[in-house]
């Protein structure tokens, strides 16, 4: 289906990443945002609060992030595309209900404009240290999808993708931006509504007597209904059978949790979204995402000038991790240099997938400022030794 023109601000704009996220959400048909103010993500909510009354959306500033995430799931089951937006401390508070969204298979989007941590850390300065939390933060086994934009234009596009993926796979989708991308202002081109493709909610056509809320379709994903449709569904965070009823035994756990995990893992090949720069002849590959990938470009250019064959691989979908791609690459190139604003998170995934076939090197950074391209260049040279 096509986007509703009402929410699409077609044209060329000069926007920061946060505001571009808001426009992406509006274009994607999001009409419910529950959030709690937190730097550096607040501007997303602010713009939505201003725009929603013109498009029939509802913004509510909740009392905390636990409430925000719970309201987002409630709204999803009420039949509205919903999202929340936060940063590190709020992301931590949302974790329990992100697990609930995974368990209830509620389509929804969470934007995390990452700042320096741990704890209150660096509220106004960038970080990329919530990447593993995005993957594993809620208790228990589950899978999510996460994307990482590296420009305001991409913030707009990635948020639409996030909504589409959340509808297609019925999972919470996390947009892992960072303070730099969130607060950098660049040109953002918003296309016409008819050029924006949206994935419709997977509503069932079955009558209530035949419908089972958690009966998987051929692609492992169940069809949905919304509250008030007369299906009298029961939806719980407890381990449940296809009917949605709690069943406390290992067989039900195995069926349900296995499916929650497999519906993403077995579709991992469809969930690859990668940008490649100068990769054809690359002997060393920089693996980087978000703002760090942009800081890596000057290092790449300098290295090329010096005759070093460097390429850059940037995952836009960061979870599920592009395992196959890294495996293939590791047998072709000499080294993988991971540039991220933390002390090693996605690096361990790269190292695991490289399986010793290529050298792996981390260029760490604690956050608060971006990498110095010189440090990246040094690492590239080190990798070739």
């Amino acid at each position, binding site marked *: 289906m096509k986007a509703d023109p*009402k929410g699409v601000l077609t044209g060329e704009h000069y926007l920061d990443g946060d505001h571009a996220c808001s426009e992406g959400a509006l274009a994607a*048909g999001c*009409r*419910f945002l*529950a959030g709690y103010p937190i730097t550096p993500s607040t501007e997303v909510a602010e713009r939505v609060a201003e725009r929603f*009354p*013109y*498009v*029939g*959306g*509802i913004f*509510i500033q*909740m*009392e*905390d992030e*636990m*409430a*925000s995430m*719970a*309201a*987002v*799931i*409630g*709204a*999803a*089951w*009420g*039949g*509205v*595309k*919903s999202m929340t937006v936060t940063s590190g401390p709020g992301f931590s508070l949302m974790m*329990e*209900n992100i697990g*609930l969204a995974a368990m*209830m298979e509620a389509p929804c989007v969470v934007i995390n404009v990452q700042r320096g941590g741990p704890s209150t850390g660096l509220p106004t300065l960038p970080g990329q240290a919530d990447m593993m939390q995005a993957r594993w933060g809620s208790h228990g086994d589950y899978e999510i999808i996460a994307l990482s934009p590296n420009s305001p234009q991409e913030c707009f596009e990635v948020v639409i993708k996030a909504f589409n993926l959340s509808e297609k796979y019925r999972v919470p989708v996390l947009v892992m931006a960072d303070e730099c991308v969130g607060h950098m202002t660049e040109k953002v081109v918003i296309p016409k509504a008819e050029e924006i493709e949206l994935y*419709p*909610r997977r509503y069932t056509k079955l009558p209530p007597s035949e419908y089972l809320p958690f009966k998987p379709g051929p692609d492992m994903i169940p069809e949905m209904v*919304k*509250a*008030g*449709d*007369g*299906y*009298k*569904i*029961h*939806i*719980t*965070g*407890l381990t449940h059978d296809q009917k949605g*009823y*709690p069943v406390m035994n290992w067989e039900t756990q195995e069926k349900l949790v296995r499916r929650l995990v497999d519906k993403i893992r077995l579709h991992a090949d469809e969930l690859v979204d990668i940008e490649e720069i100068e990769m054809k002849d690359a002997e060393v590959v920089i693996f980087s995402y978000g703002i760090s990938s942009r800081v890596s470009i000057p290092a790449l250019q300098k290295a090329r000038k010096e005759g070093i064959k460097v390429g850059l691989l940037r995952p836009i979908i960061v979870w599920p991790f592009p395992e196959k791609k890294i495996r293939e690459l590791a047998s072709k190139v000499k080294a993988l240099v991971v540039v991220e604003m933390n002390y090693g998170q996605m690096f361990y995934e790269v190292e695991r997938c490289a399986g010793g076939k290529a050298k792996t090197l981390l260029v760490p950074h604690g956050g608060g400022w971006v990498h110095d391209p010189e440090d990246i260049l040094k690492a590239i040279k080190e990798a070739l030794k």
Partner: protein
Amino acid sequence: MKATEIMEPPVTEEMDHPMENILRMDRIPHIWCSTCGIGTALTSFAEALKKITTPLEKVCVVSGIGCSGRSAGYIKLDSFHSTHGRAIPFATGLKLANPELKVVVISGDGDIVGIGGNHLIHAARRNMDILVLCINNFVYAMTGGQVAATTPLTANTSTSPYGNFEQPFSLPHLAASCGAVYVARWTCLHVRRLARSIEEAMNKKGFSFIEIIAPCSTIYARRNRLGTGLDLMKFYHDNSVIKHGADTRELDIEFQKKIIVGKFIDRERPTFLDAYNDWMKQKLKDKFVPHGGPQC
């Protein structure tokens, strides 16, 4: 008859359960202990459902975690069993997504007032159009009877083994002072009054709160040597005082003392959504697009 004597059940012909259109019969038997008050509270809820004009497919139940949190699982309506403490914000999202729905939160004191207390006071402040049935058994019963924000002073619990020394909340006073438009308290003995009260609250717009005092004979009563479930009902009979319109400052519950019940607050105030629509219409005039329910 002595309170402790248990009557033989009457011999009846095989018949349908009188509440089977409202209960998920395929989930019965339930997990609650014999003489637990939650089932009684649900019976009153079911009675109220028979009388309201809202079609049942538009009534939703949201629960949190705990004994009372299991309520959503037994009621044949669109029902959601959310996380501990978060039933009210979940219900908020559901209601705002589709204002046509009548959303009822049924959960316990630990869930709504303990871990979820912040959401309770804010939903009352905003006058979110939902009804909260808070079943109060004075302890965290599901986990074995730990001290709660509602445990009366001196009462013994597994984590207040020498008696509780913390001042409990008075739930009607809390809800009323935060702006609830309808506030009542009943015990599980007052089944008809409770059903009428639920019906009245369901027909009311805005944040309504009903505290339901429920016997927990397995844990609370046993630990405090209060006898069986029947003894607790007898206690409610002898010690509850109906006082409609009572000053909510005078509703504290002391250990094994009088319980004031009744309807304390019934007032009008614009709901969150009404206030939003009115305000935006004033500010944005014909450019305002009111939220019109489900959109995907």
